[in-house]
């Protein structure tokens, strides 16, 4: 099973920062679309360094996280 983490920060101004982690491929963008439709308009969107890592390495990291939690 894959672990999908979403960190949502609702700022004092009402603006919302969202960090979606662990979701690979299009599922990441699915989360982004879902939250955009829920909250409002996109002011900024960035792909983090994780995005540019090879998918295999990302998968290994994910598995390590899972093992750590077990």
């Amino acid at each position, binding site marked *: 099973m894959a672990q999908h983490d979403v960190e949502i920060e609702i700022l004092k101004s009402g603006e919302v920062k969202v960090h979606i982690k662990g979701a690979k491929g299009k599922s990441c963008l699915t989360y982004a679309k879902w939250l955009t439709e829920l909250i409002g308009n996109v002011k900024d969107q960035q*792909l*983090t360094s994780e995005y540019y890592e090879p998918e295999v390495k990302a998968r290994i990291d994910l598995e390590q996280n899972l093992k750590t939690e077990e």
Partner: protein
Amino acid sequence: MSTVLVLTPVIISSWPAITAAVAGAASALGLLVRETVKEANAQNQVEVEQSVEVELSQSEVLAENLATGQEIVLTKGSIELRVKRDERGRCVVCAKGFGHTDAELKQIAEEFTQKLTQCYVYDKVMRELKTKEFQIVNEEVMNDESIRIHVRRWMD
């Protein structure tokens, strides 16, 4: 894959949902919910007060479940805030009070609209997260008054 989004909230809601967010914001800022506009209009207002109106530009209050002229009146000391729906359907906060400049009243109204927006977004996001069966890992209010929510979901 990972992404960071910054979203500007849009408030499109019925009056009861706005009322819930107003109550949350009022509580957070120490404001008392005093009365509705109908009761307030019955009073004779002889003295002239400074008054400033701030509009939530990204908002639309649906007319359903909303009586004509319905408002929420909030008070704190000599300050009075009125939350209402304007002719265009937007949510408006009007601040007034003796002994305060326009700039002070505008700042108070803007502070309230920000807190109202934050409460509205929080309520909406938490309801949706529960519906989608996310596990809440952590939730905290930071020193800068931002609210951080960390949720997790396991996918096959």
